[in-house]
């Protein structure tokens, strides 16, 4: 089919109008992918029964018990045009402590924090009482998941796949 110059220009103007909608869509797709990958992969690598004694390895992502942390992943739709930003995050009250560390838990009433779990050899009762609990170690799950997705090329693949819908 022959296309004249005017027809070619009209076609490219249509392409431009389409591509202008790409950045927000691609940012949304990337944020949704990261949120799902965290909930379904990073936060399920180690599953524990509720109440089971567990000492987390520094730097390891949080283990899954109730699943509330995974359920608290959220995304916020992209804003912007040719440069668009979307958010991926976690609204659980423990999320920031896990991701960034640097926290010491102290009782808000009474002198000790206390809980019961399945215990370990030197404390088979599983009853624990501490004046404070050091949560200084990081157990990040958002940044490492994003880095993994970038390093594996998977995030780029997902984003290109989405962009193709806007690139005839």
């Amino acid at each position, binding site marked *: 089919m022959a296309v004249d110059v005017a027809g070619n*220009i009209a076609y490219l103007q249509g392409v*431009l109008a389409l591509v*202008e909608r790409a950045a927000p869509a691609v940012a949304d797709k990337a944020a949704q992918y990261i949120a799902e990958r965290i909930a379904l992969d990073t936060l399920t690598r180690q599953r524990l029964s509720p109440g089971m004694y567990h000492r987390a390895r520094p730097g390891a992502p949080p283990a899954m018990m109730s699943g509330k942390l995974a359920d608290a992943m959220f995304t916020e739709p992209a804003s912007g045009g*040719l*440069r668009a*930003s*979307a958010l991926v*995050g976690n609204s659980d009250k423990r999320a920031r402590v896990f991701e*960034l560390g640097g926290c010491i838990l102290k009782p808000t009433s009474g002198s000790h924090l206390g809980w019961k779990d399945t215990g370990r050899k030197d404390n088979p009762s599983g009853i624990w009482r501490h004046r404070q609990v050091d949560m200084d170690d990081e157990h990040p799950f958002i940044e490492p998941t994003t880095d993994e997705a970038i390093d594996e090329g998977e995030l780029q693949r997902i984003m290109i796949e989405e962009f193709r819908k806007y690139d005839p």
Partner: protein
Amino acid sequence: MAGALPAVEQRITVQTAGYLAALDQVLAAIREFLPEESEPGS
């Protein structure tokens, strides 16, 4: 205490300006091939 902490978030930014600039250049190049509009009545 922990309840007062804000959510932890990561921002993902995508920029398509470079792609659009390239398309604009293609458009400009093609427009040069358009015949100049003739004067009305000429």
